């Protein structure tokens, strides 16, 4: 196992390197940066939903919390290093509390969906209504629906005047996405990750084997929130303003759509889904004929109906099939023993 983890790390680093070199030749780095950030956000949900089996309708809450935590602390502190850490920690702590409340109450999927959705809405409404000057945290006025502009953006750690922007900022975001991707890979290879997949498959069985499902789901949920929070901070730096729309249901819906389209249960799928759909949205935004929401909605419906597994699993299935056929004729038949008996279930 450790050997293949090293190999994975090298592959990820190489692929990231090549993409960072090639893509700017095709798409501007300003647009690419936000695609990378959305990729990270999608990965956060892809991890907890696709591997942890936790259906969260409010991943945008952690994205927004990360962005606001960054903006508020950056205004108060005056530089970006500590705020970047806070942007990861605050959403993670919030998710740990929320997750503990939900998972220790043994709530089913639908309830999880409702509660995460409602919590997002609560955050949205609360932040949206903080327009007056009396709503401030330290020196940072929350600004209600206008949001918070004008906070210090990312600087080189220890050098508050050395801002990172433009192409440099794109490289930082891409490197961070590569790093997060590697960490997620390592997590999924670890015992914790394998147990998480077991829990996704059958909670009852895992608890009958002695695993504390509630605690593990809570930790998984918090890890997802930490990644979403990091994406939020990066987004804040890119947009140079944070607004309540980060918390909106529309944002949550989009994250879910990225994961579905790209493919749940894969790491690559959500990242590609996010980048692809966000780029499509960017292209659609340049014309006025067809509405954006109409296309996004239609894509989601069509995928749920016709390709519920998403693009990446479908493609890799095709690839394996073709590859195996071509390389090893008869391989499939050797591996699977013929089974005449119908499987019966009692219940």
């Amino acid at each position, binding site marked *: 196992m450790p050997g293949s983890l090293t190999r994975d790390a090298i592959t990820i680093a190489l692929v990231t390197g090549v993409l960072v070199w090639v893509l700017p030749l095709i798409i501007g780095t300003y647009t690419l940066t936000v695609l990378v950030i959305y990729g990270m956000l999608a990965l956060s949900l892809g991890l907890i939903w696709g591997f942890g089996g936790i259906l969260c309708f409010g991943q945008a809450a952690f994205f927004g919390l990360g962005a606001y935590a960054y903006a508020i602390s950056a205004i108060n502190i005056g530089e970006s290093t500590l705020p970047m850490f806070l942007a990861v920690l605050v959403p993670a702590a919030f998710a740990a509390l929320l997750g503990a409340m939900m998972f220790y109450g043994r709530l089913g999927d639908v309830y999880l969906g409702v509660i995460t959705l409602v*919590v997002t809405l609560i955050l949205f*409404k609360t932040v949206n209504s903080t327009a007056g000057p009396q709503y401030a945290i330290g020196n940072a006025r929350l600004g209600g629906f206008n949001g918070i502009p004008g906070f210090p953006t990312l600087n080189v750690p220890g050098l508050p005047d050395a801002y990172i922007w433009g192409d440099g900022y794109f490289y930082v975001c891409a490197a961070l996405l590569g790093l997060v991707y590697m960490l997620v890979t390592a997590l999924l290879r670890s015992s914790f990750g394998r147990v998480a997949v077991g829990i996704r498959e059958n909670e009852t069985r895992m608890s009958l084997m002695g695993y504390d499902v509630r605690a593990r789901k809570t930790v998984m949920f918090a890890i997802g929130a930490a990644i979403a929070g990091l994406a939020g901070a990066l987004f804040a730096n890119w947009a140079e303003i944070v607004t309540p729309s980060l918390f909106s249901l529309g944002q949550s*819906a989009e994250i879910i759509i990225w994961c579905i389209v790209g493919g749940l249960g894969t790491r690559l799928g959500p990242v590609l889904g996010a980048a692809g759909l966000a780029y499509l949205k960017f292209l659609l935004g340049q014309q006025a004929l067809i509405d954006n*929401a109409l296309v*996004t*909605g*239609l*894509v989601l*419906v069509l995928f749920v109906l016709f390709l519920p597994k998403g693009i990446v699993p479908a493609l890799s299935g095709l690839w394996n099939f073709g590859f195996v056929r071509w390389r090893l004729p008869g391989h499939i038949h050797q591996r699977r023993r013929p089974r005449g008996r119908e499987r019966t279930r009692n219940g």
Partner: protein
Amino acid sequence: MDLYAVVLVEMLYGVASLVLISAGLAVVFGMIKVINLAHGEFMMMGGYATITAVNLGVNVFVAMLVIAPVAVGLIGLVVERLVIRHLYGRLVDTMLATWGLSLFFIGLVTMVFGNTTTGISTPIPGFAIGDYQVNGYNFFIILVSASLLVVMLSVLKGTRSGLIARGTMQRPDMAAALGYNPDRINMATFFCGSALSGLAGAVLAPLVGLVPTSGGAYIAKAFITVIAGGPSLIAGLLSSASLFGAVNQIFTFAISPVVGEVALLVAAVVLLRVLPKGVTGTFFKGRP
């Protein structure tokens, strides 16, 4: 004294509007276990149907009570045939697909009507209770909600289709085994649910400025009212709407409308955590 009367009316109005908002979703969820996240957009389209009809010279009450429900019901029928039909029994997938539909309809309405606010004026004037001005239209909403509940109850309890519906709710497999075509029941249910959504959107339209994204304001409230209500259709609807309506109005009066909304949502989270089976799943098992 007058203040109490006004608070009482506001309270009733809060409950009534929650019942109205949630009824369509409750019927569809209670009967065929589909959570229609496009419910808010169905309401929004009910509003647009009303405004369009009124602009064409139709009487406003006819537009609200007849045209909007039928129009949205038909849209629901198309949606059921094209999308929902393939997803029965897959709760999460129906939620995702209907979320997609919600975005689709927002986009569609934006393309047809534009992204501007439209509206119609309330057809009933306000009047005064003592020193306080009350909105006369609130009484109309209370009336519509109350009649809606009465009609639903008498249909479920007193008619043959109601009996079939209740049977299907409890044991869809048995209803099918007894020869009732589940396909037709599903279609009919989705039509009725959508029509109710359309009606709600139409009746509430005069109170709000209508934009294509208006549905978002309703869906969360409807969703939590239905889920918190639990398995009994009418008892659940009434009990959770009363609870949330009261909480909402009390905090609105005491502090501000925003705090009222937030209090409602917090109450929902707490309630779901404490009673994961919903109010009626915990207290009144087995009533419609």
